[in-house]
């Protein structure tokens, strides 16, 4: 089956933030005012109300020069998504265009996904349910799946004036990333592709000008070990153990009914006389 990906080549990004505006606009996201942090960057990181944030890092180059490191940050749409793994409601699923989708109607706001996302992307935010109630529900970038369904590109992709963000079939995007990397290496010797295998690769992946840590990205993001133990071992084993225990006591109940009468008389005659009249 064809799968798709969003390639973000941060080496050609000029930090115009059109992707942020397009995202807010298309997804009808509310204003989110944050305290001024002293830099050019608008928000600290993506939130439940601001699904992509243009990160602006002031970076000192090897020879003492200054450069901006711009980075479009949003959900990475992991192929092996921790959020999908820990969701108890099955509200998080993989979409046909490579996205990791959250169904806010099925979400119960438990926030397991929030604290297990290796990239700190998912957050709870106000969501108006079908019944008209405002609830705290997990929200993040949808990869504009609604647009993809209609044959359109994600709004950030559509808007990017420099083709720093492109979307297409994964194979093509991986090839394109290699080409972009070759070009980037002429200016940035440390340039590399960021498509971390610890989460099965990401459907939003980068061509970075430098090491991931320089951008504040985890070098080897993984599905948390605790989440694997929890969902792949503790939960199924726990269900089995509780089931076996219930069966055990039911068996004990029946066998005692059938076979325990004689011995019980010997043991404590009148203790529960009513049973043995």
């Amino acid at each position, binding site marked *: 089956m064809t799968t798709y990906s969003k390639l973000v080549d941060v080496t050609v990004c000029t930090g115009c933030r059109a992707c942020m505006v397009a995202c807010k606009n298309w997804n009808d996201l509310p204003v989110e005012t944050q305290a001024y942090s002293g830099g050019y960057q608008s928000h600290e990181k993506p939130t439940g109300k601001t699904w992509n944030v243009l990160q602006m890092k002031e970076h000192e180059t090897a020879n003492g020069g200054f450069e901006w490191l711009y980075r479009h940050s949003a959900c990475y749409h992991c192929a092996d998504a921790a959020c999908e793994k820990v969701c108890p409601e099955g509200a998080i699923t993989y979409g046909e265009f490579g996205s990791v989708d959250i169904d806010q109607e099925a979400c119960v706001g438990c926030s397991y996904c929030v604290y297990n996302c290796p990239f700190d992307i998912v957050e709870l935010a106000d969501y108006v349910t079908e019944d008209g109630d405002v609830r705290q529900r997990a929200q993040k970038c949808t990869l504009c799946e609604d647009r993809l369904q209609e044959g359109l590109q994600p709004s950030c992709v559509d808007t990017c004036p420099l083709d720093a963000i492109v979307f297409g079939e994964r194979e093509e995007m991986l090839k394109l990333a290699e080409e972009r990397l070759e070009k980037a290496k002429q200016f940035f010797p440390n340039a590399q592709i960021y498509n971390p295998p610890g989460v099965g690769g990401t459907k939003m992946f980068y061509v970075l000008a430098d090491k991931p840590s320089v951008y504040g990205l985890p070098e080897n993001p993984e599905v948390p070990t605790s989440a694997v133990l*929890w969902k792949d071992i503790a939960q199924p084993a726990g*269900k089995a153990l509780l089931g076996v225990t219930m069966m055990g006591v039911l068996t004990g*109940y029946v066998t005692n009914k059938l076979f325990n009468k004689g*011995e019980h008389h010997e043991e404590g005659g009148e203790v529960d006389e009513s049973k043995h009249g």
Partner: protein
Amino acid sequence: MNQNTASKGKVKRFTKMFIYAHWIYAAAFFLLLLTGLPLFANSFHWVYAVFGGPDMTQIFHRIFAVIFVIPPIMLLLFDRKSLFHWLKEVLTWKPKDIKFFFMFPKEFLVGNPDMPKQGFYNPGEKLNSCMQIVSFFALVFSGLVLWFPEAFPVSVVQWSNLIHVVAFIMATTVVIGHIFLSAFHPNSKPSMEGITKGEISVDYAKHHHGEWYDELVEKGEVVEEDSKGA
């Protein structure tokens, strides 16, 4: 009936405060289990409807969590004697306790007349208590982290998810056995009176807690003839 001296043919086992603590703990445990189960198994989704939706269910879970920690505090404040007696008894393990577990399966299934003499608590009861103590602290501390996740490093929150589920499974497993033995097993069922009325029949004490019974006779709290007459 709940005075210091037991009724005729009965022997005092638990104080009123200890009984209250037990049942408050039991009620809170059951309600916490109920309100937590839908996040564990989808077959318990009906619980959301009972408590007025998933968000209300989560709020109730926190209210029950507060009630859950009251019993030990209650005992610590008002009945330290019972609390420490219980702790001392259930934390004292002897090599012969292992023998009990080998003989227990038969007792569990069809009754075993050859069960060895037991103290105030038998090893099964001690195991139940010990596992409840461990799971209590695991549930309370991991639960606190999950209640206030912003106050902790994210890895602590992640491990708390795992600890909470493991502790709940452990606690629920022993609770199933505990309920069966105290309410449905013909041999041990009479012990229920101990945690409702506070006293059990001398006869039951003699047959199920022989060592404790001997102590009581020695102390003169029970007259040997009592059991025969009962």
